């Protein structure tokens, strides 16, 4: 007997995986980017089912609002024409396919050997994660203050590097 939640999970998983397949197989790159948006939505719904309100909303905000937008902008910047001509995958595409299928089977086999594989009771409560506790842990000197500061340094590094790469230096000199 499948409960409503389980049915929703299955439908959502199917849609997400279909969108993911389209991401890697679409001929037009913009279509791939739009399918990516759908896949990211599916992942956000999965986060919601796992009881994490904060990260589910953040997934939409950061991944769809920022990363997907960035990818779409990059696609637009690097096109010569509307149509992507020629095959979009390498000639030997079947080899990665075999590797990936083997990896998937291997992962499932390894996971099913794990004792808690059939675990179906959650430890997280109805109210989801406690964002306040997360905030306290992030700035707690005995907690995660180092990742917190490193994250900001990482972002600074990424921003500086990306701006350095993306701006046209020849034009900047003028």
């Amino acid at each position, binding site marked *: 007997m499948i409960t409503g939640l389980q049915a929703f999970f299955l439908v959502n998983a199917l849609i997400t995986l279909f969108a993911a397949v389209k991401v890697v197989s679409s001929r037009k790159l913009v279509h791939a980017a739009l399918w990516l948006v759908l896949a990211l939505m599916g992942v956000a719904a999965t986060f919601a089912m796992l009881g994490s309100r904060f990260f589910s909303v953040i997934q939409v905000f950061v991944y769809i609002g*920022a990363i997907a937008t960035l990818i779409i902008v990059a696609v637009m910047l690097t096109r010569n024409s509307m149509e992507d001509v020629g095959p979009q995958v390498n000639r030997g595409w079947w080899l990665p396919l075999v590797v990936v299928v083997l990896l998937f089977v291997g992962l499932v086999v390894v996971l099913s050997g794990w004792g808690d594989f059939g675990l179906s009771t959650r430890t997280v409560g109805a109210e989801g994660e406690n964002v306040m506790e997360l905030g306290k842990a992030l700035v707690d000197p005995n907690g995660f203050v180092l990742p917190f500061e490193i994250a900001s340094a990482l972002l600074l590094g990424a921003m500086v590097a990306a701006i350095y790469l993306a701006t046209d230096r020849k034009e900047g000199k003028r």
Partner: protein
Amino acid sequence: MSFWIDPINFVIAWLKGLLESWGLQPGLVTFVMYLIGAFVTTLLAMLLVVFLIWLERKLIGRVQDRLGPNRLGPWGIFQTFADMLKIFTKEHITPDGADGVAYNLAPVISVGAVLMVWAVIPFTATVVGVDFNAGVLYLMAVGALGEMGVILAGWGSNNKYAMLAAFRAVAQLISYEVPMVLALMIPVMFTGSMSLQALVKEQDIWFIFLAPVAALIFFISSIAEVGRTPFDLVESESELVSGFNIEYSGLKFGMFYVADFLHAFTISLLFAALYLGGWRGPGAEQYPMLGFVYFALKTAVVYFIGILMRASLPRFRIDQMMDLNWKYLTPLALVLVAATAVAGKIVPAEMAGLRLVVMLALNGIIFAAADRLMTRRRSARRQVAQAPRPVAHYVQPAPTDPGD
């Protein structure tokens, strides 16, 4: 519970009782109740647009010394219905080479992304769609979806101008989300929660007094998010031949229009809820309907200010708009968050009066300093712009790098 104290919850309880008396499962009753609640809220929001379009045309007409719509019905109030009738029967012209799915999905997403905000707005002390505990970020996430609608419209129409305008629009929308997120962080800091109902309940002193500059930043950036004058570069007729919706016609075009009007009203609701105390006011907790009236009045004031701005201000140039965001609002908001965080720790929340004075003074100082810097930059730029340039006889500019 009597009808007159809390009519909405009275009706809800009555409906629930009715459904249960039909012998439905409790889960199903919840589902049906949610369905009805969501349907009524969205439908009311859509119908509100009909009124808003009339109101805005009338008000802007008055500002510009015209009458506005005045033929159909008293004060022309049925004008919008006539327009609706017309737009419903207009032909939908799909341009050649349009990407079917993206083209048709875009107007739906644009309206849907605005309507979804209404799910978390606390209308009274007792009526709120869902008291979502990541509400503030939910607002931003929904904004990100609206941005997707613009991208889809621009890409799906297969038109250069639509594409160009969509990219400008996206640049504007994403830029102004940055100061908005930072400005919203200050109420969250004061409250210690991201749920909108908690934010409203916390406002014993309205946040506009505790964080006036943050309120100003939020107001400016939310007007930019809507894309109204002075930030209406998204649909500037003279530059981009109407913007990303150029290839749309009939009700598909109308939906972008609906989204625009509804969005303008929705940001007024949010401003009233986040900075003007929402439904709070004398007697609002005993009589929730009174809170609804307060909320509506506050929203109306904010909305009116928005319309006045729309009627009276000229349009920014795109570089000015980007400068305003990245070189003024964003650094200002960052400094403001930092300064408020320090001041809030030095003056604890228990000393409410002192805190209010300190916050007001702090905001005043920061705003004055920012204004000073801005004025200096502006006058420097004006000198460059006003430097005498030869008109009658053209002077060959000196070669810039003589080396080669």
